[in-house]
């Protein structure tokens, strides 16, 4: 079956004359046609505006503090808040060795001993705020202390902190056994991954990056919404307007034209995604700084066994996003080749996207698996990159982001072939 599919893909896309000059010109015309549509321009402008807004949404909840000359506390938010935090956290940049961690805890314990819970603002801003991310890292692990919140730090001894990374390893192992069972192949894979996490963790001011990485899903969704809107019209509108009659009676009006239309639509959808991703990424780097990308994801998910930094997660989410946008566009093109009204392809594609976003709240394993193989699955890949969901087939355990990657990648040629087939076989009613 796989062999047959690969032969089909090869024959339909490559061994034909798709790259001949005539086809390249046809592609240029088709691109010109799509880009001249008023709806394309409107969609592109809206998508770019949303891409400009999203990075600023990632700053929500990040506050900086400033003591004014009058002695009153000023809370900074948005870009100023992030900037203030970045400046403050630069104090601890470098490797989060047990020495550094103990310095943080000792400092807190000393201040707590002196002031109790009412540490003066000036001292809090100077001493605690720069160390808050590291304090949260230690607290988030809890590591058997049984207390959450900064109070948990009071129970730590220097010895605990010297063994911080060993204690974390133990906690991760326990977590994996609890989640995957100790003997499963998934457990073995996850354990191998956990072994690759580099310790001590590298620390940079990374405020905002976890949210910014997560918001790539937003960029992907915007691109999918826009791509589906554009792709839904490709074949349906031709059926509606009757343009199909002229094209279908022409020599290249069937397979070759369908291929060109599909390639053009995928280029436009992919290009639109890359354009808004570029705007989003540049703004994120401007607001949050690029050094924060070097921080391991354990700062956001302490027990995650995945050996990635935020840079890895950002790049992987962005690449998966591109594949998902293309897969969803191909899927919409396939629907467009089946329906006369573009409303149906849009509705079905968007429904699929919404289902994907809701899938996180559904606990049934088969629903999760089903959602992983949908062409929209890559829109929620950010969460999967932290988690330890595995598809187990016999002794083979496949990490869910890999399942999502391959199913989405496969969806592009499969849906394209189906679109060509249904376009060529479309029966006039």
């Amino acid at each position, binding site marked *: 079956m796989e062999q047959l599919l690969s032969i089909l893909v090869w024959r339909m896309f490559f061994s034909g004359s798709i790259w001949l000059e005539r086809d390249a010109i046809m592609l240029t015309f088709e691109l010109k*046609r799509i880009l001249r549509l008023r709806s394309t321009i409107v969609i592109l402008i809206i998508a770019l505006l949303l891409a400009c807004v999203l990075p600023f949404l990632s700053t929500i909840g990040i506050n900086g503090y400033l003591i004014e000359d009058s002695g009153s506390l000023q809370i900074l938010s948005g870009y100023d808040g992030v900037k203030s935090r970045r400046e403050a956290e630069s104090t601890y940049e470098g490797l989060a060795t047990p020495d550094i961690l103990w310095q943080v805890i000792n400092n807190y314990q000393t201040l707590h001993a002196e002031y109790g819970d009412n540490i003066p603002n000036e001292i809090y801003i100077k001493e605690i705020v720069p160390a808050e991310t590291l304090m949260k890292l230690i607290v988030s692990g809890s590591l058997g202390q049984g207390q959450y919140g900064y109070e948990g730090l009071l129970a730590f001894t220097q010895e605990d902190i010297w063994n911080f990374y060993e204690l974390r390893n133990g906690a991760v192992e326990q977590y994996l056994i609890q989640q995957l069972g100790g003997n499963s192949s998934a457990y073995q894979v996850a354990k191998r991954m956990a072994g690759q996490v580099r310790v001590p963790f590298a620390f940079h001011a990374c405020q905002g990056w976890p949210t910014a990485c997560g918001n790539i899903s937003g960029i992907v969704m915007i691109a999918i919404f826009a791509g589906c809107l554009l792709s839904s019209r490709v074949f349906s509108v031709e059926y509606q307007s009757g343009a199909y009659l002229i094209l279908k*009676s022409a020599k290249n009006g069937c397979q070759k034209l369908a291929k060109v239309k599909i390639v053009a639509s995928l280029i436009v959808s992919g290009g639109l995604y890359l354009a808004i991703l570029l705007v989003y990424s540049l703004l994120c780097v401007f607001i949050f700084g690029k050094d924060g990308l070097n921080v391991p994801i354990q700062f956001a998910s302490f027990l995650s066994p995945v050996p990635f930094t935020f840079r890895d997660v950002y790049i992987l989410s962005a690449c998966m996003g591109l594949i998902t946008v293309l897969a969803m566009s191909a899927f919409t093109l396939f629907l467009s080749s089946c329906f006369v009204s573009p409303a149906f392809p849009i509705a079905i594609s968007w429904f699929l996207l919404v289902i994907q976003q809701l899938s996180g709240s559904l606990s049934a394993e088969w629903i999760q698996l089903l959602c992983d193989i949908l062409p929209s699955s890559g829109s929620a890949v950010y969460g999967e990159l932290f988690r330890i969901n595995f598809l187990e087939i016999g002794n083979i355990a496949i990490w869910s982001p890999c399942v999502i990657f391959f199913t989405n990648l496969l969806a592009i040629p499969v849906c394209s072939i189906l679109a060509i087939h249904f376009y060529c076989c479309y029966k*006039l009613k």
Partner: protein
Amino acid sequence: MKLRINHVTKQFQGKTAVDDFTLDLSCGICGLIGENGAGKTTLMNIICAIMEPNTGSILLEGLDVKKMGESYRTQIGYLPQDFGVAPEFAVLDYLEYISLVKGLTAKEGHKRSEELMEYLSLHDDRKRRVCQLSGGTRRRVGIAQALLNDPKILILDEPTTGLDPGERAKFRQMIGNLAKERIVLISTHIVSDIEALSTRNAIMKNGKLAACGTTDELTEPLLGKTWEIKIRSNDMEVFAKEHYVLNMRNSDDGTFSVRFIHENAVHGAAPVHPCLEDVFLWKYLA
């Protein structure tokens, strides 16, 4: 060149749109006449290989066009009744685009598009977007696209719809020139448009071929039976009840000039030469 429509039948959800239709076409203009819903468009879609018949076949020089595939499609030019010209294209862009779809090279397509724009007086509109064109100009663009590949078989479905009288006259002249070396099939329910042009006419009724022949052959049964008379408007109702009225024209003096069929001479009526429209109205309209 011979194109044979061979016992073609097409059904849609139990309704027969084309019913065992057989017709031989050769170079020249053939008019396909029928009222709305007679099955003309369905038949044309079948001839253009856009639609497959349930039974029967289309044969070009004895070869089944279904088996000919691309080589058949390179020989046809089709102007559908309702065709959606991509509105975002300028006229020249659209013609060049269609020429590529029709298998011409970019260079050939450009040259041919320029020629046809000149021929169809579209040159001034070459840079205008198709959505900004008048109905008649869009129709001319439609005709131009049908001619891009210099087709041997030209199928025109209601080509004069939306054209003003001047454009219609121009169209008739243009089609007359084109038909010398190719098969031209024109469907219409405006019989006068093709009467002067067509070498043969096929009349379609309820999906079937009701009659076929030259204009003279088809009008022959009405020779000596078609009359014209002037009737006062007050008498019109009574006259219409007693005679088979084909057409009437209102005059300034309060009378109607009535064209009608009658076996024998009627007092005051003058004999007129029957036209194709008379036959169609008399015999084939439901």
